[in-house]
């Protein structure tokens, strides 16, 4: 059984890819199973179901994928893909977590071999790290 893949969905390709690089770097895992799915195929702002399914396939290592999202159409697009049933690798989870902090926690957990539920839980706990 491989590692859980982490997919970061943002309206912006730069945000998604940069947060993926940041999370891998902070996790200290150069080949971390994380990738971005940001913006539209033409480079514009938005959410592309196509880019999300491609990203999920890229990081799918047989253990499923945890998907973190920013807002609005990113949330709805991933929910619609999950409802479809056959668009994302199994098991796939939409993780309720802040994008940046959640991505770091998810990547650390995934790189350490946690299953998809544990990865989702680790990312969700990021909501509890108070800043003030």
């Amino acid at each position, binding site marked *: 059984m491989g590692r859980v893949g982490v997919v970061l969905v943002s309206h912006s390709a730069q945000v998604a890819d940069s947060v993926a690089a940041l999370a891998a770097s902070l996790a200290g895992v150069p080949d971390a199973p994380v990738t971005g799915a940001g913006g539209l195929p033409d480079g514009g702002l938005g*959410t*592309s179901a196509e880019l999300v399914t491609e990203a999920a396939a890229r990081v799918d290592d047989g253990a499923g994928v945890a998907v973190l999202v920013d807002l*609005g159409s990113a949330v*709805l697009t991933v929910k*619609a893909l999950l409802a479809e049933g056959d668009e994302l690798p199994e098991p796939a989870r939409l993780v309720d977590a802040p994008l940046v902090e959640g991505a770091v926690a998810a990547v650390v957990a995934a790189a350490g071999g946690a299953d998809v539920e544990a990865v989702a839980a680790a990312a969700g706990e990021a909501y509890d790290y108070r800043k003030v």
Partner: protein
Amino acid sequence: MVDGEALDAGFFSRWMLAAAEDVEREADRLTELDAAIGDADHGGNMRRGFEAVRTALRTDADGAGPGTPGAVLMLAGRTLVSTVGGASGPLYGTLLRRAGKALGDAETVDVAGLAAALRTGVDAVAQLGGAAVGDKTMLDALIPAVDALPRGFAAATAAAEEGAKATVPLQARKGRASYLGERSIGHQDPGATSSALLVGALARGGGA
């Protein structure tokens, strides 16, 4: 167009093509409405999505198109989810896919059957977006339209247009417009407006 007649796959394809024409014609207006309370991309997003639906219907089954009403709606819905690029993609995609799934393999459907299938789709949209009537969303046009549809396409169209107009005094409670709070009052909701276009195109499914 006789509302009581059996609606086949050809009707559903013509409906989607008519909707694509209407979206193309009204895209600038949809974007203007979205510029007032959203991010000014609704017209462009819907135009891109329905243009892809048009292409998908023409190239499916080597040009013959999908063979059943359900297959037409499923194809259109899947295409919208993957091409629109904004929240309306998954929302309209869910509406049409769920309605298509509800129609199953039936070769034809009557207006009452179409209304029941669309109600299944509208319920799925409400669940996906967590919205209800009065939140200033596409549901404000779709729910009255589905309620009126058993009385015919003209009644459904009138109900959808009235529902879209009735979003003007509402405060948005879902989506990007909800960030504006009270400043969203006084503008017609772009999603309700495009929903009224989709319902209005039904009457042209007969090919007249």
